[in-house]
């Protein structure tokens, strides 16, 4: 597929997708056209906001049962787990991960999702958890289905789980999507393909038999590496200058 690819990228252009990627139609009228203004990071971007995480419970990480109906979601039960790290490979503890996904039939509960895939009364498709001191997260869910969308003729999104990561530093904020390694739709998806080719594998979870639980659920592993310095870099600089 031939597509116009814009030059405006925030962050490393070998990693992050350009704002304008014509094959993904929604970028056309929403991508900025003027160059981003490069400025130094300041305390505003490197210090930690106070997040109210008192609402986060262990049940929030079990999407198969957190609909509050007492019933269990339909579909292939999966465990999705991994580590959140900074770009030096150090764990990022206490990060808030929020996930949302379609059900096993490829339907979201969202009111604007109107395609005729069946809803599952026992599945909300939303979850959250905090990373452990080792930076680890773990969700129990069902494998999402693919679903059609209006981007182009016979367009289907590959199965994916949306991830939002609120790390201790504003500069590390990330919203992304996790895909599955055995999905034939990946190469056809302009949202996935908007990422530079060398970085695409980093969005793909791999099957992990050591995560799979016998008689229960299949295991998938996906690590998240956050760009940018965290608050410690800022504090170290403050101390060295003091």
């Amino acid at each position, binding site marked *: 597929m031939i597509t116009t690819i814009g030059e405006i990228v925030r962050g490393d252009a070998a990693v992050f997708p350009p704002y304008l990627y014509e094959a993904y139609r929604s970028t056309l009228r929403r991508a900025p*056209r003027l160059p981003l203004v*490069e400025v130094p990071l300041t305390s505003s971007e490197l210090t930690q*906001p106070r997040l*109210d995480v008192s609402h986060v419970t262990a049940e929030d990480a079990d999407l198969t049962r957190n609909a509050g109906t007492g019933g269990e979601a339909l579909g292939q039960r999966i465990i999705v787990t991994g580590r959140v790290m900074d770009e030096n490979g150090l764990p990022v503890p206490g990060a808030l991960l929020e996930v949302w996904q379609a059900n096993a039939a490829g339907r979201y509960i969202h009111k604007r999702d109107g395609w005729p895939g069946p809803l599952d009364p026992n599945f909300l498709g939303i*979850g*959250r958890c905090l990373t452990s001191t080792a930076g680890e997260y773990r969700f129990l869910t069902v494998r999402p289905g693919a679903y059609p969308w209006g981007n182009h003729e016979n367009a289907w999104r590959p199965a994916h789980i949306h991830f939002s990561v609120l790390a201790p530093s504003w500069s590390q904020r990330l919203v992304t999507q996790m895909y599955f390694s055995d999905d034939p739709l990946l190469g056809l998806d302009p949202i996935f393909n908007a990422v530079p080719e060398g970085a695409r594998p*980093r969005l793909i979870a791999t099957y992990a038999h050591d995560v799979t639980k016998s008689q229960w659920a299949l295991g998938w592993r996906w690590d998240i*590496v956050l760009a940018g310095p965290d608050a410690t870099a800022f504090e170290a600089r403050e101390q060295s200058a003091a």
Partner: protein
Amino acid sequence: MSAFSVTPSQTVGPFFHDCLLRDDRCEAMVSDEAGSQIRVEGRVIDGDGAGVPDAVIEVWQNASFARIATDAEGGFSFSTARPRRVSFDRATMQAPHLSIAVFARGLMNHLLTRIYFEDEPSTESDPILRHVPEARRTTLIARRAADERLTPQYRFDIVLQGAGETVFFDFTSPAR
């Protein structure tokens, strides 16, 4: 590929509301900091001049965080503590500002901008604004609304593309 290759971003898509804006996750996340409050309202606008009805903005300042979805016309509003000046480097202070991230279907990575205030004298000498071409600085400055309610009201539109396009930042290494 190194073991610690950075994870790329993807669009937030159109279906984030149930997850990111559940009752206890949006305005409830604004901290009740002591001090005076301000209210900011505006619209997120696309390259056709139309409101963006499926955007979510995040507002960060020192110790507080808020998340607000746009309405059917692209409008948003929020209340927060009036920001104070914070350090830039050991010799310089920044003008009061709010850090803003914009997420939407069609945005492959969130956009970063700032809200400054027209009635704040230090805005003129802010060290970050100095990096912005002079003609575009006004896109980062909230206008004080004329009406004098108890809580000061400001207007700040976020124009993603086209005439009056908002300045968006790419942050590089820390200031020294």
